[in-house]
């Protein structure tokens, strides 16, 4: 049997290039997650508001994010804005805009869920102990909310990393694209390189996402 392309990976700087490609995707997700968490906390608090208009706006926002594939949003922001507003967005900027739009909705929903999951009796007990509203929030509600939120936000990171693989569709050179380039360049000498290269990319994603999602599960159990 011919070689399955493992040799190609160790030729020259190929492996390094793959890692760089992976970093492009991971960097986009980390930036997006960081912004999403901050905005998501604000959105989540706003979503618990009793104001009907505010509620309605965020419902529509959430529903859009729930239904529209991120791919479609990427296309709209990347191709649409050039047409309509004449903006010449960098592909990476477009990607970050879309993933923040998506991540903020997800995070907002998590924050809202965590806030309303705290039983009312917690507020009442704090008040009965003579705490002010601020104190109750600071010492009773917030610690519980954060404990519920941290595992869920860690999960959001892995989902974000998995989703950013889509950026290759708007022309960003990330790990899959680098993989294709390597396969293409070695077509003659190693026609089966696709196997080795894509198997390694598969494993790379797993090795990044798996420990992170295990951490989330562990924290969830620990703080349950």
């Amino acid at each position, binding site marked *: 049997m011919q070689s*399955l392309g493992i040799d190609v990976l160790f030729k020259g700087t190929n492996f390094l290039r793959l890692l760089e490609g992976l970093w492009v995707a991971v960097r986009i997700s980390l930036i997006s997650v960081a912004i999403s968490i901050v905005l998501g906390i604000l959105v989540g608090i706003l979503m618990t508001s009793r104001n009907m208009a505010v509620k309605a706006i965020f419902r529509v926002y959430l529903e859009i994010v729930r*239904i529209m*594939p*991120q791919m479609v949003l990427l296309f709209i922001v990347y191709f649409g804005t050039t047409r309509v507003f004449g903006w010449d967005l960098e592909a990476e900027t477009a990607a970050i805009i879309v993933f923040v739009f998506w991540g903020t909705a997800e995070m907002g929903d998590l924050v809202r869920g965590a806030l309303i999951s705290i039983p009312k009796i917690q507020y009442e007990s704090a008040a009965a102990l003579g705490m002010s509203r601020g104190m109750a929030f600071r010492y009773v509600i917030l610690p519980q909310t954060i404990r519920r939120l941290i595992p869920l936000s860690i999960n959001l990171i892995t989902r974000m990393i998995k989703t950013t693989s889509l950026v290759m*569709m708007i022309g960003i050179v990330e790990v899959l694209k680098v993989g294709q380039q390597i396969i293409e360049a070695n077509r003659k000498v190693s026609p089966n390189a*696709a196997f080795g290269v894509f*198997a390694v990319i598969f494993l790379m*994603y*797993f090795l990044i996402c798996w420990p992170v999602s295990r951490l989330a599960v562990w924290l969830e159990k620990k703080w349950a």
Partner: protein
Amino acid sequence: MDIEVIRSYIPLYRDALLLTLRIGWQGVLWAFVIGLVCTLIRQLRIPVLRQLVTVYVELFRNTPLLVQLFFMYFALPKIGIRISAEVCGSLGLGLLGGAYMAETFRSGLDNIAPIQEESALSLGMSYLQAFRYVILPQAVTASMPGIVANVIFLLKETSVFSVISLMDLMFTAKDLIGMYAKTIECLTLLVVFYLIMLLPVSLLGSLLERRMRRAEFGN
């Protein structure tokens, strides 16, 4: 926005939608089947198979569908496994979904306190009756929100099918934009057709969740 252009594009988008729907629902069906088989293996604690299920679930939950499809469609033929693009799409979606469904079903079953089964048995029910009348209804109710979320997630994920050269909605939109540069019309149709595909599922899902909640007891 040019109405004529839109009118002339609609048949192309309709075909793409039908293809996406066909492969999407096949994938969802696969996901249910694979998820159920995995749950069965886990519940019956079959050795070896149980460990394999865990490996499979972790592997597919922690990698993007895009990478899975690349592997199935471009890498597997190099070791002699050739799958057509359509089968690759539905099976790939099914493998991804199966891993998610297995987790959802498990958390649904885990949610049921052991006392439920014990009480059923002490009332003289057989194991099968206890499962059918006591465990299953509660488990289905508990996993319903997760199941609905999974189905919507899977149907959304169909948007990456164009990488294995399936002529789905994304493929059609990208192709048309590339050829005629009617970007706004193409993107509008794209959004409209995804709404046609997903809005009914989303609404039906919410309805189902609400109805199921009536079966809940005590809370």
